[in-house]
């Protein structure tokens, strides 16, 4: 009887371990839309902090989930690369996304994405549109 219980437990343990390894190995990409937001910030503030001190801004924002609000100035759809460009008086934020949502250029939107750093613009990856037609301040 005791042997049976131990065997069953060992088998169950084995299944859990193999399952966990298998899940870890094949786990899906993090769902940015459902992830907890680390910072809610405007395009202007975000760009300004990268321009003022890039390494400090990297430390603060790299790999973090941001919700950014700003004005849409361009929808970019090139080979394999899609995104929304948000603009402020200080610079731009490029929000790369799988599908370009139906939004109008010139409107204010709120986009959620994961910060990858700064090139020509601040880059957010795996973006999702959270709100559109925000009231202009």
């Amino acid at each position, binding site marked *: 009887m005791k042997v049976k219980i131990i065997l069953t437990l060992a088998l169950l343990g084995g299944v859990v371990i193999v399952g966990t390894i298998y899940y870890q190995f094949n786990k899906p990409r*993090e769902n940015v839309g459902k992830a907890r937001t680390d910072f809610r910030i405007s395009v202007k503030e975000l760009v300004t902090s990268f321009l003022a001190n890039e390494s400090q801004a990297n430390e603060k924002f790299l790999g973090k989930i941001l919700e950014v609000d700003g004005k849409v100035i361009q929808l*970019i759809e090139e080979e394999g*690369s899609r995104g929304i460009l948000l603009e402020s008086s200080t610079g731009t934020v490029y929000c790369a996304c799988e599908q370009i949502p139906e939004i109008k250029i010139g409107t204010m939107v709120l986009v959620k994405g994961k910060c*990858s750093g700064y*090139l020509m613009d601040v880059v957010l*990856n795996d973006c999702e549109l959270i709100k559109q037609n925000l009231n202009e301040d």
Partner: protein
Amino acid sequence: MKTKVVLFHVIYLMSMTSFAQRLIDRSGEVTFFSEAPVENIEAVNKQALCAMDLSNGNIAASMLMKSFRFKKALMEEHFNENYVESGKFPKSTFKGSIENFDATEFQEKGAFTKTAKGEITIHGITQPLETEVSFRVDADLISAETKFMLLIADFDIKIPLAVVNNIAEEIKINVSFQFSRP
């Protein structure tokens, strides 16, 4: 008032000409392949930035390491956290120029190969790089493609013994940019 208007036009024209000399692509593609006994790993970055100056052949390219996409999320995590440490070194860059640069070649349609020479920085380590670049000049596009190999050890990237058979010592890099012609 009139001088102001003239001055404005002069500055405007000057900025136009200097701007026209510089080609920019912000959605270049960089792919890397690692061929190892246990598995092959491939990742692609479609947000590479490259500026090429058509007046002197200078090239500057950069990309964010966090923009590389892998087939498996776990590989991407390991790549960013353990190998290239993209939290500490978010960018990789190349700065260099085209050898024997001749601006007229870029004005007519055609295909040709040039050598680009410069320095590449990955994981905070800078190494010299020389690579053959094939250019194609079309009616409204100039495309540039190159491939080269990099040794992981040259960039102080440490591979744990446990996965030494999963990751190649030498990584194959393919780069492709497309510029709209001025």
